[in-house]
C-alpha cells in the first residue's frame, strides 16, 4: 500500500471516529435479551396456531402441555448463580433458579401446615409436582402448573395452604365462622371450625381463570412488590371472620389478598367471563394503588387519594372535629360523578380498584359507564394507552401482529415475483396495487399468501389472546376484524411491491432492516432516553415518537428511501410496542435480580448487622423514608443508620451485578435496577426487624425482672410523685412515668413506653400502691388537704358571700318609707341570684391553692364540698346583713 493511501485511510478513520455519534453505553438488559428473547413466545403461539382448528379459544388450550411450554419459556429467561440450600429431599442448586427461589421463599408456607407430613412429596422433582401433591392429584394436572406460572408471572405465591394471613386462630386449618350475629352494637360471636386442606384449593374452572389472568395483566401488575400471597378462604356457605357469605375478598397492605367464594364466580356459558376476573383484578389493583403511593412517597396511603384522581372522579374529603372532640373524616362524591357501579362510588380506593378491573375485563361496559376523561386517563396511566373495548382490542391486536406481517410480507413478495405456480385466490384485486408490474399471476400468488397470513393471525388472536374470542365473538366483529387485517396486509405488500419496482437493490436493504427489526437495541435505547425517574411513569407518548424517529434514521443510514423510512420507523415502532418493550425490559431486570437473590440477601444482612453492632440511642429524630418498619418501632440510631447505609449497599450490589461479563454501565439502567432492588431489600430488612422484634418481646419480661426490685424500692422511697389522692389512674400514670425513667435497658424494636408500661403497672407500681408507706403518705396528705383546703371552705365561702351581700345592700338600699320585709326579701333574692358566682370564686381560689395543685384535686370534689355549706352560709349572711 502506498504511503499516500495510508494517510487517506488514517484520515478516513479519524473522520469516522470524529463524525460518529457518541455511542450509548451498552445495556445489560439488551445483553440479557439478546440471549433470552431470541425465540420469543411467538414460537409457542405459532405451534399452537398451526394446529388450530376453527373455533378454538384460549380455554381450549388450557392443558398441561401448553402450561409446560409456557413454564419452559419463563424459566429459560432466568440464568445465573445456582441457589444453594435444600427443600425436603430436593437440592435447590439442581433446580431451575425460579423454582429454587420459590421453594426458598415459600417452601415452609405450602401444603397442609397443620400436618405437614400428611402430604408425601417424595419423588417430586419440581414445583408443579409439589403443588399437585397438595391437590392430591397426579403430576399430569393443570393445578400445579398454574400455581407455579402465577409465581413466575407475578413473583408472589398463589397459596395452596391452610393458614390464612391474619386469621384469628393460631392453628392452620382452623378458621372461625360466625355463630351469632346480634343486632349492632353487640359484637358478632365466632367459633373455631376445622377445614380440610382441599377446601383451601381452587377448582379447575377457577384455575383456568387465574391462568387467564396471568395473560390479561402486564406491568405494573407484574411488579406488585408489596404482595406476598393470594390466599383462598375455605369454600363454603358460612359467614367467616367478619365476612358474609358471598363476600368477595380483601387486599391487605400487610402483603396478602384473601379471596372468598364471592370473588371466584365464572360464567357457565363462557369461561372468559365472570366476576372472578373483575374480583381478582380489583384486589390486585388495591395492592397497586398502595404500592404506587408508597413508591412515589406521596402524602397518601393510596395513589387514588392524590388530588388528580380525586378531581378526576369527583371525590372530596369532609373532615372536622365534632362537638365531642372526635375527629371525623368521610369521603363525599359530587352528585354529577359517573362510576362503573354503585360500589365504585363508596370511596376513591374502591373506585380506583373497580374502575381499573372493569376497564381490563369489561372494556365496552366501562367505556359507556364512566367519564371519557377518566377512561383515557386509566388507559394512558395504567394500560400503556391501550383499551379493551372491542374497538380498542382490534386496534391493539392488529398492531401487535402487524409487525410479524412485515418480515413475512417481504419474503412472500419475493417468492411470488419468482413463482410460476397458479393460485386461485382473489383476496386482493388489481385495484389494490397501482403498480403496473404486478402481473395477474403475482397478484393471485400474493392474494393466496395474504389470505393464509390473515387466517393464521386470526387463529392466533382467537387462541392465544385472552381477549381474542370475546373480541371476535359475532359475525360483525369478525367482519370488522377481517377488513382491518386485509387493509394492513395490503399496505405491507403494496410498499414492497412498489419499492422493488423502483430499486433492484431494495430487497437486500430490506433484509438488513429486517435484521434490525428483530433487535431490541434501538427500542431499549429509546426507552432509556424517555425514562423520567420511576418505573411507574408511563413513557408511551415519548417512546412512540422517539423509537419511530430513531428507527427511521437507521433505515435512511441503511440506504432505504427516505420516503419509505418514516413508514419503516413506524413498522419498527409497532414491532416494539411500548407495552412489550417496557414489560420485557422490566422483566429482564427482575430476572437478573431473581438470579442474584443470594447476593441481595448477603448485602442486606451485612447492612443490618453493621447497623445492629453500633451503639444505640433514641435521641435524634428518625430521618429517612427508604426503610420504615411495618410494625413496632426501631430506635432512631438504628433506623437512621439503615436509611443512611442502604443506598450504599444497593449501589454496591448494582455495580457488582454481572451478566456474562456485561456490567451495569448505563446510568438509566442503574436507576431502574435500584428501583426494583429497593422493595426487595426493604422486605428483607422488614423480615429481620420482625424476627428481632419477636425475639426482643420474649426477652423483655426477663430483662425487666432484673430491674423490677430496684424500681420498686425507688418508688416507695419517696412518694412525692403521687399526683392525686382520689384518682387512681392518675397515680398509676405518674408512677409509670417515673418508673420508666428508672429502666436502664433501651429496647431496639419497641418503644420503651410500650415495652415496659404493662410490666411496670402490674409490677412495681401495683406493689408501691399496696405499700404501707403509700398508705401512710395518703393519710398524711389527706390531712394536709383537709387542713389546707376543706377546712377553709366555709370561711372562704362566707367571705365571698359577704362581698355579694354588701353588693346587694348597695343596689337595694334601706329606706324609712319601706318596711324591713320589703327590703330584706329582695336582698335575699339578690344574694341567691349571685350565689353561683360566689361558689365559683370560692372554688377557683381553692383550686389555685398549692396543695390542690400538687394533688391535682378534682374541681367536682371541691364544688361538692362548697355546695354543702350553701344553706348555712346563706342563712348566716342574711342574718348578718339583711
Amino acid at each position: 500500500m502506498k504511503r499516500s493511501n495510508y494517510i487517506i485511510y488514517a484520515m478516513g478513520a479519524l473522520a469516522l471516529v470524529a463524525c460518529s455519534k457518541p455511542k450509548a453505553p451498552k445495556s445489560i438488559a439488551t445483553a440479557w435479551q439478546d440471549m433470552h428473547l431470541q425465540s420469543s413466545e411467538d414460537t409457542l403461539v405459532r405451534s399452537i396456531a398451526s394446529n388450530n382448528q376453527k373455533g378454538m379459544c384460549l380455554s381450549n388450550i388450557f392443558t398441561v402441555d401448553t402450561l409446560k411450554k409456557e413454564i419452559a419459556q419463563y424459566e429459560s429467561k432466568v440464568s445465573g448463580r445456582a441457589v444453594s440450600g435444600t427443600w425436603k429431599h430436593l437440592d435447590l442448586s439442581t433446580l431451575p433458579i425460579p423454582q429454587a427461589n420459590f421453594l426458598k421463599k415459600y417452601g415452609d408456607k405450602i401444603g397442609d401446615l397443620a400436618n405437614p407430613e400428611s402430604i408425601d412429596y417424595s419423588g417430586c422433582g419440581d414445583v408443579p409436582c409439589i403443588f399437585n401433591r397438595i391437590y392430591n392429584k397426579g403430576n399430569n394436572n393443570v393445578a400445579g402448573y398454574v400455581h407455579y406460572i402465577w409465581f413466575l408471572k407475578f413473583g408472589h405465591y398463589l397459596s395452596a395452604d391452610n393458614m390464612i394471613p391474619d386469621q384469628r386462630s393460631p392453628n392452620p386449618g382452623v378458621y372461625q365462622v360466625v355463630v351469632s350475629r346480634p343486632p349492632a352494637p353487640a359484637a358478632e360471636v365466632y367459633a373455631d371450625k376445622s377445614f380440610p386442606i382441599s377446601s383451601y384449593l381452587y377448582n379447575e374452572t377457577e384455575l383456568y381463570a387465574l391462568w387467564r389472568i396471568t395473560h390479561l395483566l402486564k406491568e405494573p401488575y407484574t411488579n406488585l412488590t408489596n404482595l406476598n400471597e393470594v390466599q383462598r378462604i375455605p369454600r363454603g356457605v358460612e359467614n367467616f371472620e367478619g365476612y358474609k357469605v358471598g363476600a368477595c375478598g380483601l387486599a391487605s397492605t400487610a402483603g396478602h389478598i384473601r379471596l372468598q367464594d364471592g370473588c371466584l364466580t365464572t360464567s357457565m356459558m363462557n369461561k372468559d367471563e365472570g366476576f372472578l376476573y373483575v374480583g381478582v383484578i380489583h384486589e390486585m389493583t388495591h395492592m397497586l394503588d398502595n404500592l404506587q403511593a408508597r413508591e412515589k412517597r406521596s402524602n397518601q396511603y393510596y395513589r387514588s387519594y392524590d388530588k388528580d384522581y380525586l378531581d378526576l372522579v369527583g371525590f372530596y374529603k369532609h373532615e372536622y372535629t365534632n362537638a365531642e372532640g372526635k375527629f371525623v373524616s368521610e369521603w363525599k362524591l359530587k352528585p354529577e360523578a359517573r362510576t362503573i357501579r354503585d360500589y365504585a362510588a363508596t370511596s376513591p380506593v374502591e373506585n380506583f380498584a373497580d374502575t381499573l378491573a372493569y376497564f381490563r375485563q369489561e372494556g365496552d361496559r366501562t367505556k359507556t359507564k364512566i367519564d371519557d376523561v377518566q377512561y383515557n386517563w386509566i388507559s394512558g396511566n395504567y394500560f400503556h394507552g391501550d383499551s379493551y373495548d372491542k374497538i380498542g382490542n382490534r386496534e391493539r391486536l392488529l398492531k401487535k401482529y402487524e409487525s410479524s406481517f412485515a418480515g413475512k410480507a417481504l419474503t412472500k413478495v419475493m417468492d411470488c415475483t419468482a413463482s410460476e405456480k397458479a393460485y386461485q385466490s382473489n383476496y386482493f384485486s388489481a385495484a389494490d396495487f397501482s403498480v403496473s408490474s404486478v402481473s395477474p399471476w403475482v397478484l393471485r400468488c400474493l392474494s393466496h399468501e395474504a389470505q393464509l397470513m390473515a387466517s393464521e393471525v386470526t387463529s392466533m388472536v382467537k387462541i392465544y389472546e385472552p381477549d381474542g374470542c370475546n373480541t371476535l365473538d359475532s359475525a360483525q366483529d369478525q367482519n370488522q376484524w377481517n377488513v382491518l387485517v386485509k387493509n394492513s396486509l395490503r399496505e405491507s405488500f403494496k410498499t414492497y411491491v412498489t419499492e422493488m419496482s423502483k430499486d433492484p437493490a431494495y430487497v437486500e436493504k430490506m433484509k438488513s432492516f429486517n435484521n434490525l427489526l428483530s433487535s431490541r437495541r434501538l427500542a431499549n435505547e429509546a426507552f432509556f432516553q424517555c425514562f423520567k425517574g420511576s418505573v411507574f411513569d408511563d413513557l408511551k407518548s415519548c417512546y412512540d415518537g422517539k423509537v419511530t424517529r430513531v428507527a427511521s434514521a437507521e433505515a435512511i443510514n441503511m440506504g432505504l428511501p427516505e420516503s419509505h423510512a418514516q413508514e419503516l420507523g413506524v413498522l419498527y415502532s409497532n414491532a416494539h410496542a411500548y407495552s412489550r418493550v417496557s414489560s420485557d425490559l422490566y422483566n429482564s431486570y427482575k430476572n437478573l435480580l431473581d438470579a442474584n437473590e443470594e447476593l441481595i440477601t448477603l448485602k442486606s444482612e451485612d447492612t443490618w448487622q453493621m447497623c445492629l453492632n453500633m451503639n444505640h440511642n433514641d435521641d435524634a429524630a428518625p430521618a429517612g423514608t427508604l426503610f420504615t418498619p411495618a410494625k413496632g418501632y426501631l430506635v432512631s440510631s438504628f433506623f437512621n443508620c439503615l436509611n443512611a447505609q442502604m443506598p450504599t449497599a444497593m449501589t454496591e450490589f448494582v455495580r457488582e451485578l454481572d451478566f456474562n461479563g456485561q456490567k451495569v454501565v448505563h446510568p438509566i439502567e442503574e436507576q431502574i435496577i435500584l428501583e426494583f432492588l429497593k422493595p426487595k431489600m426493604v422486605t428483607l430488612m422488614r423480615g429481620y426487624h420482625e424476627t428481632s422484634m419477636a425475639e426482643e418481646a420474649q426477652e423483655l419480661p426477663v430483662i425487666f425482672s432484673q430491674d423490677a426490685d430496684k424500681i420498686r424500692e425507688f418508688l416507695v422511697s419517696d412518694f412525692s410523685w403521687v399526683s392525686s389522692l382520689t384518682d387512681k389512674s392518675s397515680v398509676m400514670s405518674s408512677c409509670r412515668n417515673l418508673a420508666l425513667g428508672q429502666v436502664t435497658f433501651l429496647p431496639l424494636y419497641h418503644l420503651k413506653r410500650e415495652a415496659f408500661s404493662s410490666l411496670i403497672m402490674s409490677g412495681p407500681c401495683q406493689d408501691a400502691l399496696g405499700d404501707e408507706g403509700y398508705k401512710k403518705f395518703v393519710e398524711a396528705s389527706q390531712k394536709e388537704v383537709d387542713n389546707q383546703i376543706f377546712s377553709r371552705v366555709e370561711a372562704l365561702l362566707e367571705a365571698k358571700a359577704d362581698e355579694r351581700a354588701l353588693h346587694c345592700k348597695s343596689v337595694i338600699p334601706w329606706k324609712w318609707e319601706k318596711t324591713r320585709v320589703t327590703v330584706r326579701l329582695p336582698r335575699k333574692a339578690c344574694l341567691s341570684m349571685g350565689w353561683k358566682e360566689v361558689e365559683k370564686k370560692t372554688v377557683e381560689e381553692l383550686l389555685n391553692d398549692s396543695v390542690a395543685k400538687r394533688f391535682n384535686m378534682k374541681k367536682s370534689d371541691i364544688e361538692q364540698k362548697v355546695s354543702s355549706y350553701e344553706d348555712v352560709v346563706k342563712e348566716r349572711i342574711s342574718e348578718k346583713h339583711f
Partner: protein
Amino acid sequence: MKPILFLSALFLISCGAQKNDPHYGTTTIKELIDVKGEPIKEEVIPVDDSKILHYKNDEKYQVQNGVVTNGYINPTNEERTLIYWKHAFKDCDVKIQKITEKIVGHEKPEFVMKCDAKGTGVVYTEDSDIVLRVIKYETK
C-alpha cells in the same frame, strides 16, 4: 467571602424560621386571615357556630365562634412516616382513637394517634407506616 457568609446566614435564618402556626384556642379568625390570607373556600360543618376554612396544599382550619380550634395539614418529609411521630410522642401519654365508624369496601380502618401535651394528632391506617394527616389542636 462576605456575600457567601451573608447568604448562608440568610439561608439559616429563613430555614430556621418558625412556621406561622396559629395558637389553637386563642388565635382569632381575623388573625388567621392576616397570616394565611383569604381562604380558598369555607365549608359548613355539623358543629355549632363552626366552619372549616380551606387553604392551598389541602391545609384546613376549623373555627368556632371566631376562634381557630383545629388545623388539618399534610405531613411533609419524615413526618410522613409513623415512626417519626412515635419518636416525637415517645414521652407522651398517647391516646389512639379509631376514626372509621363503618368499614366501606376493603379499606383498613383509620386511626388517630394523639399527644395532648403537644396538641398534635396524626391519622394513619391500620398496619401502615404512613401518616396521612396531621391534626393540630389546643394543648391540654
